[in-house]
């Protein structure tokens, strides 16, 4: 089962949430971030090239212009490969674990998998971010030494940053699966 809804992030940009229910024990949530806008790309390129042309008119060295073109290209490739995240996915599989994938604009994918034995709970937390108070979804990891303690807090959807309404949808779905998991782990 698959459906798609539109939400907004904390800055007002449009996000698309795609939910896929593969089975009662396996669900996937896919958040697509706003794409790289042509306007900002043009603005940055024009600024860099104007600055380079200004330096060229001072120094009369044509290496500055080729260096500016090279820097723009390398900077754009680096931005697309290392910074710009296109899509963030959360895959939750009952009794296996939770997997978070970030796909970059250049196609690179970076994945983290947390085993279900280490997951204590999934909660929505409040945080103060500059002048705003934002909500974020995070996974609480169990401390092996202390059964009631928390060893680490792993935030999810860090670059998409959806608002509370989107987070509540995802939270409810995840809690259904975690409840199943807790029920089966207590009654083997």
């Amino acid at each position: 089962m698959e459906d798609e809804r539109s939400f907004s992030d904390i800055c007002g940009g449009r996000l698309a949430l795609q939910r896929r229910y593969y089975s009662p024990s396996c669900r996937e949530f896919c958040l697509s971030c706003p794409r790289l806008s042509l306007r900002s790309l043009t603005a940055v390129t024009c600024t860099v090239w104007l600055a380079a042309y200004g330096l060229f008119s001072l120094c009369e060295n044509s290496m500055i212009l080729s260096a500016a073109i090279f820097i723009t290209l390398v900077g754009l490739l680096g931005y697309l490969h290392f910074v710009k995240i296109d899509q963030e996915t959360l895959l939750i599989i009952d009794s296996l674990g939770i997997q978070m994938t970030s796909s970059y604009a250049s196609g690179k994918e970076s994945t983290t998998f947390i085993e279900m034995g280490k997951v204590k709970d999934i909660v929505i937390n409040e945080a103060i971010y500059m002048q705003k108070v934002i909500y974020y979804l995070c996974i609480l990891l169990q401390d092996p030494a202390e059964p009631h303690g928390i060893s680490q807090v792993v935030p999810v959807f860090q670059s998409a940053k959806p608002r509370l309404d989107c987070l509540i949808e995802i939270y409810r779905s995840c809690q259904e699966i975690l409840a199943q998991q807790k029920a089966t782990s207590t009654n083997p």
Partner: protein
Amino acid sequence: MVLKAFFPTCCASADSGLLVGRWVPEQSCAVVLAVVHFPFIPIQVKQLLAQVQQDSQVGVAVLGTWCHCRQEPEESLGRFLEGLAAVFPHEPWLRLCRERGGTFWSCEATRRQAPSAPGEDQVTLIFYDQRQVLLSQLHPPAVPPDCQVGADPTSTGGLAAVFHTVSRSEALFRSDRFDEGPVRLSHWQSEGVEASILAELAKRASGPVCLLLASLLSLVSTVGACRVFKLWPLSFLGSKLSTCEQLRHRLEHLRLIFSMKKAENPVQLMRKANTVASVLLDVTLGLLLLSWLHGRSRIGHLADALVPVADYIHLMSPFVEHILWHVGLSACLGLTVALSLLSDIVALLTFHIYCFYVYGARLYRLKIHGLSSLWRLFRGKKWNALRRRVDSCSYDLDQLFIGTLLFTILLFLLPTTALYYLVFTLLRLLMVTVQGLIHLLVDLINSLPLYSLGLRLCRPYRLAAGVKFRVLEHEAGRPLRLLMQINPLPYSRVVHTYRLPSCGCHPQHSWGSLCRRLFSGELIYPWRQRSDRQD
């Protein structure tokens, strides 16, 4: 709990047969290692499994049946498969079924002695690449390297148990389909066991070669450890010169490479391999430098450029060319040795700057000390050495008079001394920076784990940070199918985990304490060797 069945991708096209593997009850997870094909004799299968269990300490058993046929299984085959469950009792009994040419699978798990739950569990199929899982190492390791060989890591994590099971079951994968054994198996090596002629030849040749080189190296180290070198002038020089330190370091590396002991665990093996790669890179770069230096009379040009610099020691100017030639020759031993030699030559040539810096610093420090003490006298205070604090004190008139006079003299001489100190300190800092950069480069070549980085680039599944799952095509009513792939370790963690221990010259002071020491005139030695720190 959902039952997880780990199935190797190489067996997905195998003929029907029995599933052989390990059942982990704590995680409700069945790891399928191989498929035994019809026809077989149950006694022989049981003997094979007992032998594998003895060799590998892994509890291998028959887990169920695998059916790969053209259409739905016939009645007789169905009853035959049920009969097998009686011959090989196992709880729960898996029945995997796949249509030839179809994409969807069916999987059932039945328990005969289920106390309360109904007869069937929900099953999730997870496909894994057997060869990659066999060869990969998880970071951080689930079982610490100093743990017992037969220790069971199931308590540490479900996926670590899967990796452990597959990597320990090598005994099961030794036979391929060309062997004429009693039992026909399908696994990742059933198309032919992997081996390499070069690796086998290298293994045969390495024994005598290592013995010879190890004896040569022990001879060299006994010569180096003889009593002559422990006498005062030579031992002092040996500890101060970075070339001797680097040569000692390289000798230790070579002894590690050519030692007769086999590497006990993967970490030691990686360290050996990284050391070999580091030494090879060093010698290659050194030989490149040598060929560049000795070609087209470059040494002559360099010597002409350096003559005015070396001119302050008039005795040395005829010998500059010879010195450079010998320095170039030392590059055969490695680029690091040549660089350490260069750093030592720079230190020796700028020894006069160091001397003047020490004179200037000591004078300045004396002056600052005197000024602060007389300033306290000026205000009527005294430094209490016993209590380590400033106390008030009543001075006599003549003490005050002399004190004020001396204070004035020292104060007006301060600008001159401070300027001398500033100039010599800046020159010394310049020399220290140059030496520090050379040492950083030497450290980089010494400690970079090239073999691990190459492995991460060419065979990323060998160094695993974890796993990742992909959901395959799904149909309602069929079991969920996932593909498990290895998530490789990021490059920064590879470098961090497998860094070779280096000479360890780190800056001793932070920027704040360095500035404070400079201001008060204390002598600074920013780059301390590790051996100096232990003194």
